């Protein structure tokens, strides 16, 4: 496989990949590596600036910011992957049906996609969360349900292209069923752009979750998430910069990492750029 070699050569994508791997490691190892319990209140050490004991300082309840950020990374990871997972599953099914069957099914599904794209999705999410109660599961579901349209369009385009390939005609002539043609012959060859879109989508989902939490309708305190830590931090911005800067930086680096990895994957997986 030349895949990893190409990834190693693409420096930006490699950096993105390393960031993503580190994030995974941090969130899986959270119970081991976080120096304090993220929820332990210590009234004696309120709003301490970064120090040897608390590298990122403490918040207004004396909780360790680093520990809360480490646990918060789990939220980001969960939201990112579950939301994008939902979006990819819906997008692949709708795009595959539209692209494979064509005709009026295609018209119907694609007009539905156009309709969904007309909603300003962030305000749709705001409205839905305002009606339902804000919880991490609702957030994941809503981000996923409003984010599948791009994937559906990509998958449809790929299906339209691959449907006309000779190997699909050959599959039909050797008696393969529709399901077999879709899942064995077309879908595996249609997934590259979906992988790229999903990687970029994770960054978007994390950003949306942070924004919702910042507005107070996302992950509810005391569960730590980078977004609601930012909110808490803004009240003490003048006297405790570390409360907002470190979670903000975490969001920035994470989103940048996923975006760089996604862009790199696009270059690597694009068949037109391949020498073969």
């Amino acid at each position, binding site marked *: 496989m030349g895949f990893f070699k190409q990834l190693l050569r693409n420096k930006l994508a490699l950096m993105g990949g390393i960031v993503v791997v580190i994030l995974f490691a941090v969130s899986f190892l959270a119970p081991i590596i976080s120096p304090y319990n993220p929820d332990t209140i210590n009234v004696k050490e309120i709003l301490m600036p970064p120090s040897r004991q608390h590298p990122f300082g403490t918040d207004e309840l004396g909780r360790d910011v680093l520990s809360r950020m480490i646990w918060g990374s789990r939220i980001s990871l969960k939201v990112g992957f579950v939301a994008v997972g939902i979006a990819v599953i819906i997008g692949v099914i709708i795009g595959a049906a539209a692209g494979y069957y064509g005709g009026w099914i295609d018209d119907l599904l694609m007009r539905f996609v156009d309709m969904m794209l007309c909603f300003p999705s962030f305000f749709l999410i705001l409205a839905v969360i305002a009606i339902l109660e804000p919880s991490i599961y609702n957030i994941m579901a809503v981000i996923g349900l409003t984010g599948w349209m791009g994937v559906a369009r990509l998958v449809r385009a790929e299906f339209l292209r691959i449907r006309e390939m000779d190997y699909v*005609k050959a599959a039909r002539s050797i008696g393969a069923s529709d399901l077999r043609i879709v899942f064995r012959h077309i879908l595996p060859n249609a997934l590259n752009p979906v992988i790229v879109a999903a990687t970029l989508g994770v960054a978007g989902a994390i950003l949306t979750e942070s924004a919702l939490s910042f507005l107070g309708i996302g992950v509810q305190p005391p569960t730590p998430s980078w977004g609601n830590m930012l909110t808490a931090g803004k009240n003490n911005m003048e006297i405790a910069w570390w409360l907002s800067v470190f979670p903000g930086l975490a969001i920035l680096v994470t989103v940048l990492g996923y975006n760089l990895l996604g862009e790199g994957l696009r270059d690597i997986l694009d068949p037109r750029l391949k020498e073969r």
Partner: protein
Amino acid sequence: MAEMLRVNNLVKHFPVRQGFFGRSRGKIHAVDGVSFTLEENQTLGLVGESGCGKSTIGFCILRLIKPTAGEVWFEGHNLVTAPPETLRQLRKELQIVFQDPFGSLNPRMTVAQIIEEPLLNHLDLSASRRREMVAESLSMVGLLPEHATRFPHEFSGGQRQRICLARALILRPKVIICDEPVSALDVSVQAQVLNLLSKLQRELKLSYLFVSHDLAVIRHVSHRVAVMYLGQIVEEADVKELYSRPLHPYTQALLSAVPVPNPRKRRRRILLEGDVPSPLDPSPACRFHSRCPNAMEICREAAPPLRSINEDHQVACHLYDENRPAPAESGNKKTLPAIPGGNTTNQTM
């Protein structure tokens, strides 16, 4: 000789849609009333220039695209109206090899997976039996058993075409539709694949419908040849007869364009002027009249039917209509049974 496959009056029109509501603007007449018979253990060559509907006929026979009208008789069933399950069963006996050996193999499957797929779809066999049959199929087309675990991109064009053949052969079909199987290959590799095809035909009693634009290839492999122009068969004959005594002006022009490997030999070329007319809603006239060196009044008015000259030679041209009113213009009379290059009265060089 037993009849293997009969095509009756096959028609395929592609509607051309335009505008927001998909208003039909007309129809591309890709295949327009084509009939022929493929005999058992024989090869029927289908020759014509790009866009004349040769491949469309192949796809229509397998019903990879649905014909507009007509019948395709195979094993006592009409494939055009056969219900899906019957069609699936009949496709076991009827296989296809495509032109592009790089597009006809799924790049994400190994050679073994590609070749055994027909078995998975049609038969319920054990994994070891399937492996045996894959190895047997590979050896039949001149590949090695260890090639089975590789991926298509590791092979050359000729080898890929052999893989396609192995896939087509594994169910022991009776008819193989070869859709320009060698035109994407180097000439030396072409010969190998063509010889392989002949060998397999002898050993497995196969019948081929061989689609190509290459007259030399067609001559090499075919027993009978049908020449197509713009969706219709204009001449059909035994291979020797067609190459020694072509009757239709189009066939004559095609044959005069075949290079002869002798630089000293002076030949008369028939150069056709203009382009192929649009297949979009053609007029009722003879489709070749706009480019025909022998075009007459009647050619602009009515299309000639395909009629028999002798028992195995059919041609669709008004020149050979015995009942036709005596030609008003002279200059056409002497062109009647001409050899290629002999009737170039009004051409430019």
